[in-house]
């Protein structure tokens, strides 16, 4: 897996004639620009051998679901969780055929927009198209308008939220998102339980409502566990966010997450939480640990993320996208347009149930016997006795966010305008 996407410098022989030489250099640059070495997308459907004969699969044409992925499908993060979620759906619903294109972003496919990819997926027969990044909100809307008979789902957007700020009233456009702030609280808690130095680094992506929400939730979780389970002074907890500018590294355009993670580990931040799609926090943490540094990390997005470096993993909040996608596909097959804003909380009775809970949290080995505190937190959040979005809470600039005793509304959580007081790092 090529996490860093460094362009291979193409070496061409010097051909003497300057025209040819420069052309060769140019070609090298082009090749460098295009060639990211991860293998890429294709079509997967229940292969004929596996699909149980005599089930619904025989009833006729498969229902084609298209997906536009912002990053590589094997990023051990956000995109892989979407991809595998759909694979799980396909396993359960043999009549569904899955088509996708990954790496739809200006760096990997410079001349391609999400809407164009959707057009092609629809041309191939897709009846439901899923966009998996906040960045696709305009593309999703454009596609929905252009193809009113196709169901469009935009994961992580809010255009279908009637109570939201950006409601667009597009009947065939729906949003799906998980209440990952709960997962992030658990993750933050794990980070606080794991740190020796009291310094937690948060490897942030770009800055928007969603990322502010998650970073803040992680901070709230960390502070809660630091204060209540470890009985430490919350002022001694440092929580620093560094944004790289996108969901993953784009050389030359974003900060290099490898370097940001290294800077955290070298700068006394012994726990780094990942807020991006790719696993630099884990990879660099593993290297630092191998070099004898007592560091740990908290992963994000992808269920098997701890496998990257099991010994120093404090846990991973993850998505089961099969849960909402399976439901949405069933509805779409029945002819219902997904014009809803779906924002799913975990199944509190069993958050790690892959069939019923859209979010889960898997504690890592490095947590050791402190795992019990996480369980306490989950239990408390599940039964409502713990609500971390409860006042008094101030924004980073000191202005009040929630008054004492006040709990945040969905809108206040979704559209969090600033990071919270006590966190370091830019809010916008």
């Amino acid at each position, binding site marked *: 897996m090529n996490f860093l996407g460094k362009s291979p410098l193409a070496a061409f022989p010097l*051909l003497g*004639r300057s*025209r*040819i030489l*420069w*052309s*060769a250099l*140019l*070609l090298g*640059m*082009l*090749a460098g*620009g*295009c*060639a*990211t070495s991860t*293998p*890429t*997308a*294709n*079509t997967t459907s229940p292969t004929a051998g596996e699909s149980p004969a005599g089930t619904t699969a025989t009833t006729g044409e498969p229902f084609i679901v298209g997906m536009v992925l912002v990053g590589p499908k094997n990023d051990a993060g956000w995109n892989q969780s979407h991809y595998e979620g759909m694979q799980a759906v396909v396993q359960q619903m043999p009549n569904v055929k899955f*088509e996708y*294109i*990954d790496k739809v*972003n*200006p*760096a990997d*496919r*410079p*001349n*391609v*927009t999400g809407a*164009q*990819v959707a*057009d*092609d*997926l629809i*041309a*191939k027969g897709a009846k439901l198209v899923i966009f998996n990044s*906040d*960045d696709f909100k*305009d593309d999703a809307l454009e596609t929905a308008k*252009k193809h009113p008979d196709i169901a469009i789902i935009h994961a992580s957007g809010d255009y279908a939220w009637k109570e939201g700020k950006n409601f667009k009233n597009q009947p065939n456009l729906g949003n799906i998102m998980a209440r990952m702030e709960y997962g992030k609280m658990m993750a933050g808690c794990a980070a606080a339980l794991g740190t020796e130095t009291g310094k937690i680094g948060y490897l942030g992506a*770009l*800055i*928007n*409502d969603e990322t*502010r929400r998650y970073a803040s939730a992680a901070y709230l979780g960390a502070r809660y566990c630091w204060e209540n389970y470890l009985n430490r002074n919350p002022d001694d907890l440092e929580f620093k966010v560094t*944004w790289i*500018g*996108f969901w993953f590294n*784009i050389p*030359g*355009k*974003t900060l290099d997450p490898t370097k940001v993670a290294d800077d955290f580990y070298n700068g006394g931040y012994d726990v780094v939480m990942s807020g991006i799609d790719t696993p630099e926090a884990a990879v660099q943490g593993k290297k630092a640990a191998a070099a004898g540094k007592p560091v740990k990390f908290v992963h994000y997005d992808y269920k098997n993320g701890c496998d990257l470096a099991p010994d120093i993993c404090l846990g991973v909040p993850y998505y089961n996208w099969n849960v909402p996608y399976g439901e949405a596909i069933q509805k779409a097959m029945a002819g219902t347009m997904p014009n809803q804003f779906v924002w799913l909380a975990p199944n509190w009775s069993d958050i790690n149930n892959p069939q019923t809970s859209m979010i889960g949290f898997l504690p890592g080995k490095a947590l050791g016997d402190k795992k019990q505190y996480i369980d306490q937190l989950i239990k408390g959040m599940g039964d409502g006795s713990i609500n971390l979005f409860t006042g008094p809470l101030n924004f980073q600039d000191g202005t009040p966010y929630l008054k004492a005793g006040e709990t945040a509304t969905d809108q206040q959580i979704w559209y969090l*305008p600033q990071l919270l007081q006590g966190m370091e790092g*830019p809010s*916008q």
Partner: protein
Amino acid sequence: MITRTLYYQTAALGIATILISSIIMLSGASPITVLDSMLSGAFSTPDQIARVFSTLSPLLLCACGLMFTFTAGLYNLGIEGQIVFGAIATMVPIRLLENSLPPALVILLAIAFGTAGGMLWGLFAGILNVYGRINEIFAGLGLNFVADGLALYLIFGPWKRPGVASMSGTEQFGEVLWLPTFGNTEASPVALAIALLALGATLLVLRGTYYGLQLRAVGYNLRAAYVLGVPSVRQLLSAFAICGGLAGVAGALQVLAVFHRLIPSISSHLGYLALLVAMLAGTNLWLLLPIAFFFSALNIGSLQLPLSLNLESSLAGVMQGMLVLAVLLGRGLSETNWLDKISVLRRNV
């Protein structure tokens, strides 16, 4: 001589075809299927055909611009930056006047600003080249980085969406400012008309005008042209400016017709692609349109490679590069007098 060149070129194309086919087969597919799927990916739906045309317009503009610099003997690798700076300049009237002037006027102003912006960036490269004595390739590449950096700064800084700092670009502007399109597709007749107009003008200027003749003189032999009284500095700078201007229009089209906002890679690397088009066309201006069209089709069709064949779509880039390299090699070899070379070798041994 013409037949000799033709002979070499045909052979070169044949070799390129064989090489490309072997690469495709090495990656486990059949060349025929690949070609078929790329063609069907470019032409099987109106959307796709429209996309070929919407890529064609900026590509053709850049390729036309590059004909001026190539004619003057310059390798304007700075064209990417000229597109980007043109796109940035395009955004200025849009952001300032979006709500205060009639849309048509804003669009006109935006294109004018884009042209001027690209021209300015091209002139920078020219001034560095002519007065700073920096090779235009390095001057251009340097300015590409600067323009990219500026675009990133604006997207993350002053022009960012409220509350958002993301690579994904500025806020989309209102649909009234989008260039009109053919039906519900992405192709804009305005963009296409501008590109064809530019092609016609390029043909006329380079083939028919005294300016074009002087430019050719400078390109073939700077020193002799100077001795013969051609104002060489002015010619070089104007070639940079014209190329930059056309690239700036391309940048404006990327903003107005394709992305409807400023994004970090607004050029879509069309400048580099245009360099390939221009190199492939050589001095034959009539080839620009078919080559640009073919390359646009390859680019659009390549999206089908991951979709239906599990292949990297960058294969299209490999094919384009291979073609250009083969043709240049064929051209180079056909100009070498092998009999002379061999006899020189013999004598020396």
